[in-house]
């Protein structure tokens, strides 16, 4: 297919408001989900959109995939207008929504793929060859005739990817494609995304996993409260937190009190803790680096132990947290 000359995605001053109506049909509340965002995605680029819950990622994807009308601004997909050229855009894009929804569970994978290839106008002779190829690619060939309701979460997600590819789209949108998957399942999906990129597809994906964004994306937009607060390559984004380093502690029996004590120490920028497991992980961001260690140890309450401590370079997650908290 002929590649358009301009960018694959071009977004200018895009806004979207949601109006929630009350029981009587009056306006109860107006939520501004997007308040003027701008970005471009080049042909063949793998672009990431990250941001906290409710930031506006799904809203952006829905607008770009013509499922939702923008309130203001402009968005062009492969040079086409999302407000006017609905069907032309839809024919040339693939959409993967994360989560369980979007498949017919009572019929087989083949039935699902055949149905969607018909909706997308894929010629039957082509579909007959392409569907087995796709099932092969997503590793579902030997379970292809089974009902989807018997599939694991990971298998369903791989079928979602196959479904988005039946019409061989140029541009693929993935909204949290690895949500709820185990590490192996998530890795499979990431490998598929990389393969698609290698084939020259343009990809826009959202994720809540920073390492995933860092591993996959060439450029990342950080979106917060409906605004893009940063847009750059992963390494440039990390550069924004060059001034700090991170003390990563693995502890035993540490509590929230300890985390609070660490937060009160001078020169501590931020403390992020995962206290849920047997061993806790606590990350302390500080410009002092190893020099802060004595104070960190001194703050430890009786009974708790530090199993392991390392000084690390800041990661994308550290940069992200700074960006979205400001």
């Amino acid at each position, binding site marked *: 297919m002929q590649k358009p000359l301009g960018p694959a995605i071009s977004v200018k001053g895009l806004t979207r408001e*949601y109006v929630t109506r009350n029981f009587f049909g009056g306006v109860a509340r107006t939520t501004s989900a997007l308040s003027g965002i701008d970005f471009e995605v080049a042909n063949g680029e793998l672009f990431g959109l990250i941001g906290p819950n409710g930031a506006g990622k799904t*809203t952006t994807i*829905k607008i770009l*995939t*013509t*499922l*939702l*009308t923008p309130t203001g601004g402009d968005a062009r997909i492969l040079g086409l207008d999302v407000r006017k050229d*609905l*069907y*032309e855009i*839809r*024919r040339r894009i693939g*959409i993967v*929504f994360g989560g*369980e*929804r*979007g*498949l*017919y*569970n*009572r*019929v087989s994978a083949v*039935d699902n793929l*055949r*149905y*969607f290839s*018909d*909706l*997308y*106008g*894929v*010629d*039957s002779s*082509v579909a007959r*060859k*392409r569907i087995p*190829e*796709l099932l092969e*690619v997503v590793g579902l060939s030997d379970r292809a005739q089974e*009902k989807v309701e018997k599939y694991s979460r990971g298998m369903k997600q791989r079928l979602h990817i196959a*479904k988005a*590819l039946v*019409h*061989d789209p140029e541009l693929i949108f993935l909204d949290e494609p690895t949500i709820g998957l185990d590490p192996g399942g998530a890795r499979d999906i990431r490998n*598929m995304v990389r*393969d*698609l990129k*290698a*084939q020259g597809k343009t990809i826009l994906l959202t994720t809540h996993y920073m390492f995933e964004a860092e591993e996959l994306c060439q450029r990342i937009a950080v979106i917060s409260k409906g605004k893009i607060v940063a847009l750059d390559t992963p390494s440039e984004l990390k550069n924004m937190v060059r001034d700090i380093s991170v003390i990563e502690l693995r502890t035993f029996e540490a509590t929230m009190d300890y985390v609070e004590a660490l937060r009160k120490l001078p020169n501590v920028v931020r403390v992020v803790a995962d206290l849920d497991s047997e061993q806790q992980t606590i990350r302390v961001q500080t410009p002092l680096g190893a020099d802060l260690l004595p104070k960190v140890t001194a703050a430890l309450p009786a009974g708790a132990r530090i199993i392991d401590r390392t000084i690390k370079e800041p990661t994308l997650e550290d940069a992200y947290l700074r960006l979205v908290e400001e």
Partner: protein
Amino acid sequence: MHELTPGKQTQGRVGRVIQVLRASVFLTSKLFFADPQWLIPNIIAPFIFTLVAFFLFSGQTSGSSFLLYLVLGSGLMGMWGTTIYASANSIGFDRWNGTMESTLAAPIPLSWIALGRVLFNTLQGVLNAVFILVIGLVWFRVGFTLVNPPAFFFASIMTFLSLSAFGLLMTTILLLSRKGGFITNSMEIPVYIATGTMFPVILLPVVYLPFAFMLAPTWGIEAIRLAALPGYVGLPTTYTVDMTIMVAETFAYLALAFFLFKRVEAYAKKMGTLEEY
């Protein structure tokens, strides 16, 4: 990942419509047969209904035309039931199945997909009617001599299509209203009565008549009865008049349904979904 077989797209609007209708009918039938629940409303319930009716009336009447009347009535009633059920379940199914977004995202009008769904579900009603007819013929030995067989089959097919068009219209109304289930359930009985599936329309109270005349199947059912029952006296119209009015009303339903589907799609795009109401 190796390259996929390069694809050509189905060409031409007619080709596309046929492809989508076929896909939609095919999927709906697969979904239908995957769920054994379908036996109850579609085979067992009409079967019991017909049996009861036969036992009640078979002793009392001498002429076989009354039994044929009964067969037609229960068959048509089954068709109405499935039409109404069909429209509630056509796109409503995608709403609770979580496939609304995938459906809306396709590069075709939603009405094409819905029409496929409604056609299959109405066809179920036809099979249902045929089934009842077979019970009547084989078990109760109802004399099945049609006045005019070709006219009977033609009227039956046209009534089936008009029922589908009505189902499509109902689908849009259900999508645009919140209490979809309530509307369909409360529609069923008045519609049975108004279209004369239970009694000839002529026996209806006058207040019902305008409503009955607006329903295309009322005319279809009249035409079917004229073509089937010897000496049938219904409305003071002829077969041709009945059929003409039915076809005209069917086209009106289709036009209104396609118009309302545009509204549904515009609404979905404005809200970003059709799932939350």
